[in-house]
């Protein structure tokens, strides 16, 4: 099987992916798949999508040579500046694509799940732009921790529904969005936030965010005259990572590294590293790696980064891991925060804590690659989002806030 032709017609990446959902949703998934296939071939749809990316979302993002960071890490580091996109992250690509698709299907309402609120804000943005009703499900714990993002979504006209089931976090918000969708499929598109869930979501989201890698590859060839030695990205559900990996998968000389949230450390059990610390199972509609106990009950994840705090991972990553094409490693909260500070101080860029995991990972692999290659390695790091939303968490972590309660590391804010 080659990566370019995956998934197969039933949405499988090898043994991963598929559809593990109630029968009531199958028709909606079939409709979505058919609409997506026809949109993919429709030059008008593609032109509209590209126009929004270019003139609304500020895409293509820069590929920036981070000179001072490169010196500090002993590697040539190129940052894919997805943090400069409208709404401050790669997610805008996915929400614009899916909102256009909702319009095309004639569905006036979109629903979304969100953890920290970033996907919720992006969904509310796209819904406002394209005149769609938007309902965002968010765990009650997260609505309290992310009051500003709740206000942002409301400003943009969205309805935010706090979810009080289970652990009251992202996974429960996802469950609740699925429950809404079962009852409202005729009028509603589920604007899923990552490259996971039942087929065709992993494929569709990957394709909408796949421009990250296509652009980065072309920018490397243009700026360096060659491909990089490695591409690094953080992995929660995995949409930014699959977005930058996909175009490089056929380039065998380019190593692909996904960095999962190691939380307090793998040995503590308090982490969100589904591939490196989990096992194969079924969650939220697809077979993949997930955090689960001996009975197959989902275990709550832990990470300082709310965007990575999810107990599963997209099925294509599970497959890339099994085939060995991509390498997945954990990065702890402490390592990520050190990288966060380093980028702030060397480049004047405040990254999202999610993206800081990719930076920390690049710092880890730099000496290994240098030894292996016998020269300075070139590493493209996907800077998937900006850190404005994390100022409170990081400020508390580094003790930079006056008269504010200290946030315990590992608790999301």
């Amino acid at each position, binding site marked *: 099987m080659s990566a370019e032709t995956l998934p197969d017609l*039933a949405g499988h990446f090898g043994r991963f992916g*598929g*559809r*593990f*959902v*109630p*029968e*009531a*949703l*199958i*028709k*909606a998934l079939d409709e979505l798949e058919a609409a997506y296939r026809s949109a993919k071939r429709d030059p008008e749809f593609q032109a509209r999508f590209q126009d929004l990316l270019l003139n609304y979302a500020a895409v293509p993002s820069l590929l920036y040579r981070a000179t001072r960071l490169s010196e500090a890490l002993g590697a040539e580091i190129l940052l894919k500046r997805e943090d400069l996109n409208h709404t401050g992250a790669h997610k805008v690509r996915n929400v614009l694509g899916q909102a256009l698709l909702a319009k095309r299907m004639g569905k006036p309402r979109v629903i979304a799940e969100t953890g920290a609120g970033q996907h919720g804000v992006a969904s509310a943005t796209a819904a406002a732009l394209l005149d769609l009703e938007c309902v965002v499900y968010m765990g009650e714990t997260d609505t309290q921790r992310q009051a500003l993002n709740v206000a942002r979504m409301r400003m943009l006209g969205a309805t935010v529904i706090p979810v009080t*089931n*289970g652990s009251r976090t992202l*996974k*429960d918000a996802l*469950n609740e969005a*699925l*429950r809404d969708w*079962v*009852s*409202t*499929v*005729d009028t509603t598109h589920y604007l899923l936030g990552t490259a996971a869930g039942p087929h065709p979501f992993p494929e569709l989201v990957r394709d909408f965010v796949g421009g990250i890698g296509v652009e980065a590859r072309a920018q490397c060839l243009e700026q360096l005259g060659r491909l990089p030695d490695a591409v690094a990205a953080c992995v929660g559900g995995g949409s930014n990572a699959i977005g930058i990996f996909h175009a490089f998968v056929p380039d065998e000389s380019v190593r692909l590294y996904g960095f999962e949230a190691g939380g307090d450390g793998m040995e503590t059990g308090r982490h969100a590293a589904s591939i490196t610390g989990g096992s194969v*199972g*079924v*969650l*939220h*509609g697809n077979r993949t790696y997930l955090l*689960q106990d*001996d*009975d*197959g*009950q*989902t275990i709550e994840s832990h990470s300082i980064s709310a965007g990575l705090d999810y107990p599963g991972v997209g099925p294509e990553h599970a497959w890339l891991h099994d085939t060995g094409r991509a390498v997945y490693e954990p990065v702890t909260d402490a390592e990520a925060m050190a990288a966060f500070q380093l980028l702030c101080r060397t480049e004047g860029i405040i990254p999202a804590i999610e993206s800081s995991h990719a930076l920390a990972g690049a710092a880890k692999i730099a000496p290994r690659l240098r030894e292996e290659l016998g020269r300075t390695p070139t590493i493209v790091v996907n800077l998937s989002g900006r850190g404005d939303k994390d100022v409170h968490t990081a400020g508390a972590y580094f003790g930079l806030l006056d008269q504010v309660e200290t946030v315990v590391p590992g608790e999301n804010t």
Partner: protein
Amino acid sequence: MSIAQTFAKAKAENRSVLVGCMPAGFPTVEHSIEQMIAMHEAGCDVIEVELPYSDPVMDGPVIQKASDIALANGVRTRDTLKIIEAVASAGATVVLMTYWNPVEKYGVDAFARDLAAAGATGMITPDLIPDEAAEWIAASDAHRIDRTFLVAPSSTDERIAMTLENCRGFVYATALMGVTGARKAVSSQAPELVARIRSIDPEMPVGVGLGVGNGRQAAEVAAFSDGVIVGSALIRSVLEAPDRATGLRDLRALSAELAEGVRDR
């Protein structure tokens, strides 16, 4: 009694089968056994034991809450098998309803084997469609567990036919587009769905679930189906009771009312 025999017997008596659902280990292992036996004694023909799961996307708030309580009290997969054994030994016909991941984690063939050994006759899989079920079909054939897949008002005729081909025992028709939980009125989509199922396979017994909460609704659904599946309303009588004795009394009373309903079609 097997599922087929249970449905045949009800048919001979010109009534519907009453399927009563209760999560295993809610609120504790012992109490859930007591509740299921009470339901059996009060007239539930089939006890549908639900394996509590952390992420039950098909279930509404009542079953979620009961499952959360069971899990918080430490119920394990092996406890569910123990509960099935106790309830089946008391003479009830038992089917298991479970989300797929706990089965996959246990080992699909081992689970089918142990489920059969515990005395369950069938298994309902709310998030496993036949398209993904090759391993389950093999295991359930090997250990003679009846397979119940779901069909929905949104299912195409092609999918209904494919699903019926893979069912054994009965098919679960989700009466409305939504999650479990009692509703004020019985869905108008349900009779139409049952008619579509029967036009494709007149032999397969059809159980209708989602939304039934009292004897009158049970009678309404019994009028056009072979089985009436009730969960949330039964669970609520235990959840909302001020004490255990009241909960058990209300549970028996509602079971009896529903049993009367399925005979009054």
